[in-house]
């Protein structure tokens, strides 16, 4: 288990380094931060002074070595716009993003899994088709369309909820519903498929034939076995908790990671984009690691193969 953990951690480090390197090179080749932050109308002297001050006039390899050297000591640079440490800017936005993505995850799981199980247990019924029709509509509708629809109904017409901002918990409701609806639809589809596959297995028929109560067949035999693909999807969703709300945060003017990402990329605020990508990559790696551990917990065969 120790070797497994160490090898995963090493791979995680390499993954993060690759992400940082890729982001560093691409960002420096794709736009001049001086023009974007200072605006195209700034005097040429100001643009030149900005480039010199931030070392943008030095060769890219030189900038890269300096950056990696500092990153190894925990210094991820300062925001060119804000002047504060990039990692500080990123971390102060994380709570706002988690404030909508975590309840949205709960909504995805709380709505999606029961809906998927219900549809599977009532296969080909009207209820199954209705549930799946709603699910298909849910995950095919772009989140910005759903967001604007919700705003039109609940903010503009009914006046129940605010259209944008983050002044109180009320402001989080529409972003959470927008994020949760699409995820719940995906979860329902996957849960239904996984359940249908398991329900067709011989051990389910055997359990039923032995006279085991149908409820027990479902809870003790079907659900644990159907959980593996569902956990994989949940792993992806946990991985995207930090970075998965770019569109929704922009539409609802929610001050989280997503909006910081849009603004930092648009302004080529290099240190901030790199810090963001590093945090997101680290979170993704951790989520995958957690999913691997969950597999072992859920499935004895995975535990056995790991201990061999």
């Amino acid at each position, binding site marked *: 288990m120790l070797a497994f953990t160490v090898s995963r951690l090493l791979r995680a480090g390499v993954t993060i380094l690759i992400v940082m390197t890729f982001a560093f090179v691409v960002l420096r080749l794709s736009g001049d931060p001086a023009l974007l932050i200072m*605006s195209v109308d*700034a005097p040429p002297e100001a643009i030149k002074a900005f480039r010199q001050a931030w070392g943008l006039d030095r060769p890219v390899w030189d900038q890269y070595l300096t950056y990696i050297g500092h990153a190894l000591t925990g210094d991820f640079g300062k925001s060119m716009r804000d002047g504060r440490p990039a990692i500080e800017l990123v971390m102060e936005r994380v709570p706002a993003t988690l404030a909508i993505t975590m309840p949205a995850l709960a909504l995805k799981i709380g709505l999606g899994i029961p809906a998927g199980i219900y549809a599977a247990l009532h296969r080909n019924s009207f209820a199954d088709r209705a549930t799946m029709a709603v699910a298909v509509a849910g995950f095919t509708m772009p989140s910005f369309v759903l967001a604007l629809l919700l705003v039109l109904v609940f903010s503009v017409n009914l006046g129940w909820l605010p*259209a944008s901002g983050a002044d109180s918990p009320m402001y989080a409701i529409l972003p959470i519903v927008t994020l949760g609806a699409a995820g719940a639809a995906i979860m329902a589809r996957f849960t239904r498929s996984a359940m249908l596959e398991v329900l067709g297995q011989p051990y389910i028929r055997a359990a039923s034939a032995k006279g085991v109560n149908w409820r027990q067949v479902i809870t003790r035999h079907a659900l644990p076995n159907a959980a593996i693909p569902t956990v994989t999807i949940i792993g992806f969703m946990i991985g995207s908790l930090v970075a998965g709300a770019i569109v929704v945060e922009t539409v609802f003017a929610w001050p989280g990671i997503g909006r910081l990402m849009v603004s930092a990329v648009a302004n080529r605020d290099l240190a901030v984009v790199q810090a963001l990508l590093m945090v997101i990559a680290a979170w993704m790696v951790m989520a995958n690691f957690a999913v691997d551990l969950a597999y072992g917990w859920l499935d004895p065969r995975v535990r056995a193969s790991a201990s061999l």
Partner: protein
Amino acid sequence: MILRRRHLIAASGRAAAATALPRIAIGQTDRRPSITIAVQQIANSAALEPLREQSNVGQRAFSFIFERLISQNLLGKLEEVPGLAESWKRIDERTVEFVLRKGVRFHNGDEMTADDVVFTFSRERMFGPEYDIGSSKTLFTSVLIRDSVEGKNLPPEVPAVAKRLFPALEKVEAIDKYTVRFTNRTPDVTLEGRIGRMGSDIISRRAFSEAKTWLDWARAPVSTGPYKVREFLTDRSLMLDAHEDYWGGQPPLKSIRLVVVPEVATRINGLLAGQFDFICDVPPDQIPGIEKNPKFEVLGSTIVNHRITVFDKNHPKLIDPRVRQAFTHAIDRQAIVESLWSGRTRVPAGLQWEFYGPMFVEGWTVPEYDVAKAKALLKAANYKGDPIPYRLTNNYYTNQVATAQVLVEMWRLAGLNVQIEMKENWQQIFEANGQRAVRDWSNSAGFNDPISSIVAQHGPQGQQQQVGEWTNEEMNKLSVAMEVETDIQKRKAMFKRMLEICEREDPAYTVLHQNATFTAKRKDIKWKASPSFAMEFRTINFATN
């Protein structure tokens, strides 16, 4: 014991109430409303410092906080009006003396004096301590304040912007507590204009000195404007409170909150839902939809900014000025104004604005729309329909892509084969690889003189020449001469000649239309939009039904 404690608590409560109640009563009499304004952005550079944030959005935010010695009439035609100076006079061609308004209070309660004005234009605040005093470009302040601001290094762009704003300022002196004298190294009739433009905003010396870092200062600057900064959250919001000691009378609003809402649809929905009182940066095509609702209206006006198309005369097909002239004659500008702007802006008289006053060249127009003339020019230039690239960003300017598509079709009618190349950013637009030919831009005038526009943007130090797109020997000589010329008739003749060169003979650019900005608001609020991005929220311009 319990009884005693109760008595004590009750007595404390009475004492607290006695202290608090009068204040509450005062608070209750303050019936001024607070408003929320949704904007696309508050400050691109994340700083509320006009010397760093030289943008249109910054101009809007700064109009609440800052004031200058000479102001602009935001409800008129932006003409000069007394600001923090109650009067000023010319001593000679190089010198202007200002008499400051007495009793003006900064947001921190300090009285504004000549020391603050001198400090505003000092090296510590504007030009940087490293500036070479011995250089022929010497620009220093005869500082009465010699105490430096330790650990408060200016970002390099601040001195760069300051030097552009005041290329030959020699000294700023406090004559007495309420009199300040500005002396230029060279004769300069635009000195008053420079002192009245964005960047010359007067700040509190004490507040600047007390800020721990420059960024601390730039996030909560202290000036004399009608509203003061309570909290600035980058990319999120700017909370402003009324400056109760404002010299122009108590502001009509208790507080103003600017919130960043990047999406147009969300801003509009927020207005319709009653969440916002004003929304800015409304695209023209959204205006009819908003005005369908009788509770709201859209105000807008042309601003001191013209959309232009810029030429790179080094491109093989544009070396011959007749090809560029053909471009300028093939554009039906009025059609663009009518179709894409619903007629809510206009075709201006070239790169100039009426607020130039005596420097405005009457009778000057943009090149006439004449397809036959354009065709004849192309024929004379022996243009055979070779492709000419037109580099374009995705709607950096309002209606940019739609305008470009219309232009390409108009040029095609004249025989020009212009091909749009979408670019992601300005670096790609400026890339000089032999394929740079046509691009978009907009030009503003920082103050009421052509020096602030045609010279600043197309002269030898202007962006177009700095990036190597265009140059013209006569234009450059005129630019240098105009900087120091003081005779109004000679200056006007020089300006007219510049327009002839840049817009007709050797086109550097062609003006398409004047830009406009639109603000939607609740109809029950009586408020008038300014012909600029600045917003006027003093008593003279706010009332509710």
